[in-house]
């Protein structure tokens, strides 16, 4: 039996005016377990708190009920005061008799009666309270950034700058991501490489940053502050410590017709290659699928020409175990496949390209050296048609996406403007549903394309692109504003393909127990207030993996994610919320219902050996809650039919005791 003290606050006249505080404290004095009951003008004042502290000591109270204002107001105050008097702070319960009683009821009799009932409910709960201690867990002061695009780079740089170690894991042979493939960037038109590559170099040179390129995350275990990650460093067949990046091997390799993914297949590379001149790390990689030596053991030319002796055909994938305190996801995006969009003849004509391919075709480091030429015949195109929203804002039976890809309006304006500037003899048409240009200097940029550069913006969709025998592309479209059908003879058609999360994201999310939306974008902890955190503690979101965004937005989000990660890494220990779920192993049958509803991935299962009542041993699968990860929502407690899962501080029996006290006959 608890020894409970009841303290009824007048809150000046705020409570005392409509609740007979003396009657409340006198009535509650007679409740079972109550050994002390009083009322006072301001319980939250210093002298009020002293009454509480003295009573805890003088009456050896094991539980305290304060009838006062909302616990949202002063629960922390009273818990602290109780702790100061040597009582576990979680033995304090508040009966809210101000906001939820005296302030809303004018009739003093009714108010007093309700205050007594609320007090009884709190007493009933305290009877079942148990002292709770907040656990602590250490923090590994290192962050993992998954994805080495501009988002990952920015996050890593910011974390490293703050003085913490950070590893970047990038599945491509080089960091840099999609931005390396871009030509110019809107709205300032500075060259992507010029602003990105110095940051890539910064990463390579920063002592706090380790880059695991050509690597993938294999396994994630642990929880906030204590993640254990296995990284698979894929075999490059090149010793990166020896390779100088001279490129000789890539010139001598006899396998010349490997589609060059960096240029999106618009030209070829060798079987041993460096993606591009500014790659970081600048080392060669042997493509095992195409290398003669690795396939048949016949060749070995690259090894012969390599003066550094860096080629190693026997290299194997390496698994690296690392520990991290925080993980930032920056897995980025890819344009959707357009093979289902037959009406645009993407698969039929080389001159129908995606916007990203167009970037390569206008990039000085691209397959055409920066001269815009038709991929089919290498001639100079005179009429270009840009089609917006290909696959965006229209699910179209699973072909496309319901959301707006956000970046297409701006890069299409950029493309159109650049073409018109460089080749004033071209005609440029842009077909759009809406032009969306919110963002600093964005609308001005778009207006310049229309007003200064004479780009023909036409509201309407292209219905069909038909390649003609003479190489022209017949574009059928409608102009919704003029309400007329258009037929344009185009030389090239550029499709603004929707973007989607990188396909690796889903598997990664499963490993991280981070939630995703139906489009496979990572979900944020709160759409407005916690936009760069995953609901899973210690997992942060950077860049397009969370939703479509352009470079300025990506970079700001990347820095925000870095700031959140730094905040976590700066702590030596994490204090856990003690009101967390726990599972009674004897009652748990391991059905996994709780795990399925846990938004934090706090529940894991283990096979545990039990000594059964009949003296046999049995191995049973049981749930276990990680108190450092659990946030105490209680979803699991209801999913669990046996009641094995319960929530400290809000247990089934506590809540039912409150129900009983409230519903009890007078």
């Amino acid at each position, binding site marked *: 039996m608890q020894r409970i003290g009841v303290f009824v606050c007048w809150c000046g006249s705020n409570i005392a005016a409509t609740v007979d505080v003396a009657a409340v404290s006198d009535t509650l004095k007679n409740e079972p377990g109550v050994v002390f009951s009083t009322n006072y003008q301001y319980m939250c004042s210093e002298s009020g708190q002293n009454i509480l502290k003295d009573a805890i000591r003088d009456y050896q109270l094991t539980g305290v009920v304060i009838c006062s204002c909302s616990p949202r107001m002063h629960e922390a105050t009273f818990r602290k005061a109780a702790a100061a008097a040597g009582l576990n702070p979680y033995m304090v319960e508040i009966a809210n008799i101000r906001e939820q009683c005296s302030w809303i009821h004018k009739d003093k009799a009714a108010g007093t009666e309700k205050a007594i009932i609320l007090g009884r409910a709190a007493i009933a709960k305290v009877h079942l309270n148990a002292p709770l201690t907040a656990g602590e867990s250490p923090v590994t002061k290192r962050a993992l950034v998954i994805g080495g695009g501009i988002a990952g780079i920015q996050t890593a740089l910011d974390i490293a700058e703050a003085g913490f170690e950070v590893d970047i894991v990038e599945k491509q042979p080089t960091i840099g991501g999609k931005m390396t493939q871009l030509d110019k960037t809107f709205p300032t038109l500075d060259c992507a490489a010029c602003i990105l590559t110095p940051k890539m170099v910064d990463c390579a040179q920063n002592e706090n940053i380790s880059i695991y390129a050509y690597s993938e995350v294999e396994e994630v275990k642990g929880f906030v502050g204590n993640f254990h990650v296995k990284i698979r460093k894929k075999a490059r067949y090149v010793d990166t410590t020896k390779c100088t990046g001279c490129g000789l091997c890539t010139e001598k390799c006899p396998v010349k017709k490997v589609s060059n993914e960096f240029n999106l297949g618009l030209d070829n590379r060798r079987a041993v290659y460096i993606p591009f001149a500014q790659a970081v790390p600048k080392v060669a990689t042997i493509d095992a699928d195409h290398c003669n030596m690795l396939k048949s053991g016949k060749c070995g030319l690259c090894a012969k020409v390599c003066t550094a002796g860096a080629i190693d055909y026997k290299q194997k994938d390496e698994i690296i175990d690392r520990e991290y305190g925080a993980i930032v996801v920056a897995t980025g995006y890819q344009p959707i496949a357009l093979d289902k969009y037959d009406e645009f003849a993407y698969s039929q004509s080389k001159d129908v390209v995606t916007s990203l391919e167009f970037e390569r075709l206008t990039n000085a480091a691209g397959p055409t050296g920066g001269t815009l030429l038709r991929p089919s015949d290498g001639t100079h195109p005179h009429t270009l048609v840009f089609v917006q929203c290909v696959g965006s804002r229209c699910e179209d039976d699973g072909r496309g996406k319901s959301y707006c890809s956000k970046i297409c309006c701006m890069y299409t304006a950029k493309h159109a403007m650049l073409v018109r500037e460089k080749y004033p003899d071209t005609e440029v048409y842009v077909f759009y549903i809406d032009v969306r240009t919110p963002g600093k200097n964005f609308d001005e940029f778009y207006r310049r394309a229309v007003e200064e550069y004479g780009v023909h913006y036409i509201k309407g969709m292209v219905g069909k692109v038909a390649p003609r025998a003479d190489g022209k592309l017949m574009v059928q479209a409608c102009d919704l504003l003029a309400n007329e059908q258009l037929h344009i003879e185009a030389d090239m058609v550029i499709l603004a393909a929707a973007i989607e999360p990188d396909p690796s994201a889903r598997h990664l999310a499963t490993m991280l127990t981070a939630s995703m939306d139906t489009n496979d974008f990572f979900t944020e902890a709160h759409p407005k207030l916690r936009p760069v955190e995953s609901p899973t503690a210690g997992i942060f979101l950077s860049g397009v993996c969370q939703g479509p965004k352009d470079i300025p937005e990506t970079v700001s989000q990347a820095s925000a994610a870095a700031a959140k990660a730094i905040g976590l890494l700066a702590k030596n220990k994490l204090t856990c919320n003690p009101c967390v779920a726990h599972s009674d192993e004897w*009652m748990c*049958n*391991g059905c*996994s*219902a709780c795990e*399925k509803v846990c938004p934090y991935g706090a529940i894991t299962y283990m096979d545990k050996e039990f000594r059964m009542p009949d003296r046999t041993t049995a191995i049973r699968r049981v749930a276990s809650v990680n108190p450092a990860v659990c946030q105490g929502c209680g979803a699991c407690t209801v*999913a669990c*039919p*046996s009641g094995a899962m319960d929530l400290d501080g809000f247990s089934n029996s506590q809540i*039912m005791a409150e129900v009983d006290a409230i519903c009890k006959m007078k």
Partner: protein
Amino acid sequence: MQEMMIAKARELLKSGAVQRVLGWKAGEFAYDVEPAVFESAQELEKSFVYNDFCGSNLSKYLIAQSRKEGKTLVFLKPCDTYSFSQLLAEHRIVRENVYAIGIPCQGKTDGETLKGKGFTGILSAQCEGDTFTVHTLYGDKTAARADVLPERCLNCKSKKHMIYDELLGEDGEVLDSHRFDMVEKLEKMTPDERFAFWRGELSRCIRCNACRNVCPACTCEKCVFDNDASGIAQKAAADSFEENMFHIIRAFHVAGRCTDCGECSRVCPQNIPLHLLNRKFIKDINELYGAYQAGEDPDAKSPLTDYTMNDAEPGIVYHRGGNQ
């Protein structure tokens, strides 16, 4: 079929592929077939049966049997495979210790159903084609097969096996059953009529726990109703409230997990149509969250551990189903 099953079981026991066989054993009369474990060919030959009275669902026994050393051969009727699949999804059965053989089912009757149809003093019963011949103390009687099948078989949802290692006989199809008709009929009543109906039914409950203990979805180590610490433990319904409480909470706990095998109603000594409660949840889930049958797809997320952002609001209950 019975001979094929015995032959198969004997072969697997002999080869050591399985250590025991979970099947059905003949009883005193025609109908009192009991679930049993056979460990030798002699035992199989002596009493293994597969006939029209093998209604009991063996899948729940696998929770214990699959934890024994070696493999257990189990014979599963189509509807039993739903339960087996669901139990696997809930990690209750050690899959590698089970060898599941799917067997066909044309519907199973039981002694209580026969007695309910007026057969008393049953000494033995045979089924030839579609005709049941029952020998009783008071003479022989016959009935058409369909007339002596219980409701769950008349409204069979599937003759298709959801999971098995081997199949004896042909696999069937998922059927277009009328299993929700009675739920619908109740939904169309007024709340007063429904209340009267359910009071009439649930007030007969003797809280023997047969429905719970036979249920392949009820596999808690300790049921909340047996656990004094749960706050809702009850050994008997001391008030009509407790009758309601037990059956509402039990149905809720198996909602989204119930495979509609109908065992609860089969075993109820008071013939309470308990399956209607479970079917109500299945029907609601189908209507509100999309078609879902527990046990069908082990990878599908159970509707109560899943959500969509556009789910119906609870207020939908005020607008749908039933007269006021």
